[in-house]
């Protein structure tokens, strides 16, 4: 497809939706009141005009797939023959699946906790320093770039050359200058997971930081002033006032990052492709969508496992969100 064609279909695609709404509403506005005497009738046609596109998309891309995925998880690899719980039994006994669950759990334990912690500490530091907003911008920046881009950035840091060569990876250069042997960081089982997690922490700390920055302003200034006058150290204020005050926010951010981490795919796909025991659920699922021509049964089971992990956390988060809105 040439670039010109591409530009053309992009315009056409966007125009199609604008035209749909404009033309159908124009017809209703022009002829509606004359031919459809009752306002209510015209109104209900307009409701249909307004919600139909979104509802069709919602149905095809979310509602139907949920039921279809659940159905497929009980069928064979082509989705034709009912196999009962076979795919689930396979998953429980599959060492790759267990490894992925374990890795996912470690990710869930480490990344949200550390990102939230760093975010809180940095927000608190930056709040009191005149160049704090510049610092916040810099730490927030990784939020804007893609996981794959971040993967390239960090792969460059972890780059490994044999001991006889000059190291061009920053981490190995530091290690060598301290007198140790260079390491191929991403291939050391178990530890490599932490090197991948560092990337995610580097990205997600920014998210925690901006939300905490906003929340910090809600702490009454008088309370902090009073504590300072009473001679409390900044550390004491941090632990005794700020953390208890932001407890809800901390939980919200922690769950937010947890949900992002549960679905983590890109970083691992780009950096190790799940090799050297770094696989997680989303990668395993992608793998089974295409491995050996694709196995929709096993892939569906993995998708369901991810959803079961996400639902309670996101539901809790939404519940909190709605509660806050009511207040």
């Amino acid at each position, binding site marked *: 497809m040439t670039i010109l064609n591409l530009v053309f279909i992009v315009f056409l695609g966007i125009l199609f939706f604008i035209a749909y709404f404009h033309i159908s509403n124009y017809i209703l506005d022009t002829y509606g009141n004359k031919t459809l005497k009752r306002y209510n009738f015209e109104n209900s046609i307009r409701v249909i005009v307004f919600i139909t596109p979104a509802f069709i998309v919602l149905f095809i891309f979310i509602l139907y797939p949920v039921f279809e995925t659940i159905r497929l998880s009980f069928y064979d690899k082509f989705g034709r023959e009912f196999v009962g719980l076979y795919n689930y039994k396979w998953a429980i006994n599959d060492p790759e699946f267990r490894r992925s669950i374990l890795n996912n759990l470690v990710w869930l334990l480490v990344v949200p906790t550390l990102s939230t912690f760093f975010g809180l500490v940095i927000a608190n530091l930056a709040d009191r320093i005149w160049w704090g907003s510049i610092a916040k911008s810099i730490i927030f920046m990784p939020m804007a770039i893609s996981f794959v881009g971040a993967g390239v950035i960090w792969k460059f840091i972890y780059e490994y050359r044999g001991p006889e060569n000059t190291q061009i990876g920053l981490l190995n250069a530091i290690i060598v200058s301290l007198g140790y042997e260079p390491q191929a960081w991403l291939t050391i089982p178990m530890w490599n997971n932490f090197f991948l997690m560092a990337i995610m922490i580097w990205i997600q700390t920014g998210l925690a930081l901006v939300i905490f920055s906003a929340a910090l302003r809600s702490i009454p200034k008088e309370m902090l002033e009073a504590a300072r006058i009473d001679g409390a150290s900044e550390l004491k204020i941090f632990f005794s006032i700020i953390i208890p005050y932001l407890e809800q926010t901390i939980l919200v951010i922690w769950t937010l990052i947890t949900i992002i981490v549960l679905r983590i795919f890109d970083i691992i796909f780009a950096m190790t492709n799940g090799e050297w025991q770094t696989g997680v659920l989303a990668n395993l*699922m992608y793998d089974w969508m295409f491995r050996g021509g694709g196995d929709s049964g096993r892939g569906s089971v993995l998708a369901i496992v991810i959803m079961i992990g996400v639902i309670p956390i996101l539901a809790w988060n939404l519940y909190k969100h709605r509660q806050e809105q009511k207040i």
Partner: protein
Amino acid sequence: MKKFSISSLLSQLLLLFFVIIWIIPTFGLFISSLRDKDLLAISGWWTSLTTTEVNEIYRMSGMESQIEEDGYFKIKGKLFEDNSEKKIESFGITSKKINEFNIGDVAIFKDESEVLLDEDGNYEWRSKTEFKKKKGKRLFTTSLSPPAFTFENYREVLFKEGIGRAFINTMAVALPSTLIPLIICSFFAYSLTWMKFYGRDTLLAIIIASLVVPLQMSLIPILTIYNDFGALFGVAAKSYPGVWMAHTGFGLASTTFLLRNFLKSLPNEMMEAAKVDGASHYDIFLRIIIPLSIPAFASIFILQFLWCWNDLLVGLVFLDQVPSEIILTAKLKELLGSRGENWEILTTGAFVSMTVPLFIFFALQRYFIRGLVAGSVKG
């Protein structure tokens, strides 16, 4: 007072420490993308401002270029191209002693042949006996390369490696994938907020329930639908409109949710007054809702645009990995596999892929943060 300033200094240092840790990875990538590729391959980017000592191995010409002169067999030539700024400092003839000789020394091989080398890489080999091998002898050189920065990497990546095309493809994916949901969701959110109809609350509950469905749940069934659709109509199953609709589907629930939260906060009286004046819902939508919603639209636009721009999974599953369709993230991932050692290509490619997000980030940070804080419900 003194105690306060010490603690303030400590916090400043701690924050500085965090800032340095956070910026170094990106900074290193940026510097590397501007470095000469030969230097990039052999020295760390933190040495890019100093002169680098480069050790290289060259091979002289073999027997074909041999000439007889003054009773000697001679081979003359140059080790590297004329336009190089390299200056050779020292050289060697065995891998054990690569710095054995200085420029001007005559190096003598085991077979008693001799070689002379000048700092520009011109060599002259001579021997009493004829040279009988096709491959010439090896020379080990140590030269000093001054710092070298170049845009050559960008030219190469954009035009030769296909990153330029991938950039356009990504734009062609991200723009409609952002605008289409914005268009249809704004009407959807409007009707959910300001129109009365049977089943409205049920529909709203479905939207909120959809928020918790991770995108992985949809991949297999949608891919099957696309394949069936492609087979039925004899068209390519994976295509741009397919990706747009997939992104629209995955962003629909959160976009609608955010827009509805915003629309709900608008005063009811305004709509009622307009209705009394005879305005239709479409009039209200065009003349009241859209102007009032610009900031909300901006936040949602940025959020969804960055999401689509940075996405890998959807582009991987719903587009063919061919030059006319591959998106930046997928291309980068492909290069990580195929050109894993060519850091000039990887660093430059990554930086090109980051230009748009970084521009949005620095130009529209306020809206970005607002959208992110509000839109963190995306499932």
